[in-house]
């Protein structure tokens, strides 16, 4: 039987990807340009026995998300700029309490209300540093409707596996455009569920890392009684101010991500083998960059594209190699200089790093990129 193919918006693809991943809980608050995610799930979740709740505000949505996730639910929340700002405290809560969940941020113009229907990529540093306190982050920026579907599944997998919030950093262009999406068959994409504890309820400690960096998470209501708090805590989940315990816990929570980059990082490389100029681009902007690479190659200019799909953690190692290889790295982004800071940090001056920023609500078009590449060469 032929696979189901449907033309759909990126936001709709996200909702269907979530369902494929086993998402059974959505909490959200209406905000443009993310509402289609909620609309689709309000319709689809009850069909599979899942739950949809529209909360009273953005903070409440993330609170309900975490509460549901602690009962074992695979939970999704979708929002956009201002909503993401409101959620930051609880994203930190999900980090320290180590609760798996997925939060979609359909980036629009900003700051503040900005341009609700205009695209942006200006929450990229927020995805890493938005919540207070040291922590690790995983964020993913897909570039097509098909990829949004598949990366939503991967976002759930990473959340479940690493027991933490994962952010899907979409942009308004990817979220609202429509493309054909081929629905994968059951079993075709890997679906990971969180590890359940093997110890008895009496012996369970929710942050005990003696068996590995990522302690299993028991679901509320499954026979295990334990304590969850946003305070710094010891392995047993109870608050502590003992310096060595606090330090060890904080470091473990970052190490569980940074020690597993091979599993978490994902990039696309296009025409990079002999590239003299590397375009570093993600999300919808990477499509302009790819178009530009093709045009530049026609003119004999050795351009290539490096597209991080996992944007946080940052692919330090590979970008450093490319900086050694290339004469220049050009970074088009719909912001005034966010991920380019990481490129510059990693390139350490090995090549020229040139930023193309745009915040007028218009996408960066291939012509802009082509012109800049010719300038820097």
């Amino acid at each position, binding site marked *: 039987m032929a696979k189901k193919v449907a*033309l759909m918006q990126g936001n709709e693809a996200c909702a269907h990807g979530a369902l494929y991943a086993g998402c059974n809980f959505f909490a959200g608050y209406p905000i443009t340009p993310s509402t289609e995610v909620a609309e689709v799930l309000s319709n689809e979740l009850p069909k599979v026995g899942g739950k949809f709740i529209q909360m009273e505000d953005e903070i409440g949505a993330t609170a309900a998300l975490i509460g549901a996730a602690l009962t074992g639910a695979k939970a999704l929340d979708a929002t956009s700029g201002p909503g993401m700002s409101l959620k930051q405290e609880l994203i930190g809560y999900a980090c320290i309490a180590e609760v798996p969940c997925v939060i979609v941020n359909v980036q629009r113009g900003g700051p503040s209300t900005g341009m609700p*229907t205009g695209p942006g990529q200006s929450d990229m540093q927020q995805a890493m540093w938005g919540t207070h306190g040291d922590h690790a982050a995983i964020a993913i920026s897909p570039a097509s409707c098909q990829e949004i579907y598949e990366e939503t599944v991967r976002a759930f997998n990473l959340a479940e596996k690493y027991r933490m919030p994962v952010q899907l950093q979409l942009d308004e262009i990817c979220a609202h*455009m*429509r*493309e054909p999406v081929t629905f994968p068959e059951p079993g075709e994409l890997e679906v990971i569920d969180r590890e359940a504890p093997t110890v008895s309820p009496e012996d369970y400690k929710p942050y005990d890392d003696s068996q590995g960096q990522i302690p299993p998470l028991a679901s509320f209501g499954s026979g295990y009684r334990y304590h969850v708090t946003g305070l710094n805590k010891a392995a047993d989940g109870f608050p502590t101010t003992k310096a060595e315990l606090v330090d060890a816990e904080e470091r473990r929570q970052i190490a569980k991500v940074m020690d597993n980059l091979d599993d978490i990082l994902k990039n696309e490389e296009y025409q990079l083998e002999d590239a003299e100029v590397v375009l570093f681009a993600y999300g919808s902007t990477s*499509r*302009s960059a*790819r178009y530009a690479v*093709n045009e530049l190659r026609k003119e004999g200019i050795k351009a290539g594209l490096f597209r991080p799909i996992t944007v946080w953690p940052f692919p330090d190692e590979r970008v450093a190699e490319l900086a050694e290889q290339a004469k220049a790295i050009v970074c088009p982004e719909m912001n005034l200089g966010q991920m380019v800071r990481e490129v510059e940090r990693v390139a350490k001056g090995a090549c020229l790093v040139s930023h193309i920023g745009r915040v007028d609500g218009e*996408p960066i078009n291939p012509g802009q990129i082509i012109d800049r590449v010719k300038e820097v060469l």
Partner: protein
Amino acid sequence: MAERYEIRFSGAGGQGLITAGIILAEAASIVEGKSAVQSQSYGPEARGGASKSEVIISDGPIDYPKATIVDACLAMTQVACDKYANGIKPGGLLLLDEDFVPNVPEGDFKVVRVPIMRTAQEEIGRAIVANVVALGAMIALTGVVAKESGLKAVLSRVPEAFKDLNEKAYNMGFEKVKAAMA
């Protein structure tokens, strides 16, 4: 058709032109298996103003998802024409509603004028199908998908009770353009 082909539908908000774009993209991608991307302009108003829907169709992958320079453009109203009938490829096509776009822009493109809204209102009796008339007209004008593919995509979207109405609208739009170009 390896190269990208870009089509813009524009008119007043509420005229169903976003849907027309979606159906065209479905005809190209779901029915004919090509690549297609549809996108649209969003304003704060749900009705009125000027709205546009753009479709890019290609045999190969589509990188840049927005229109660069369009091969064909439809304007249903003067406001939409003034705002969106630009960036047309030299030698491209401009399809206008004959009654609602009195001031025809000049440029290096072929203008085809068809009474789209009048056809919907008077000949079919339902203004709501003007977008399907427009879709038939655009497919006749550009040949970007086969006539049957467009019709199949239209019919897959409408309830049984409205299939005849929409088929009639689609065919009429198609024939009007064929007659105008003959």
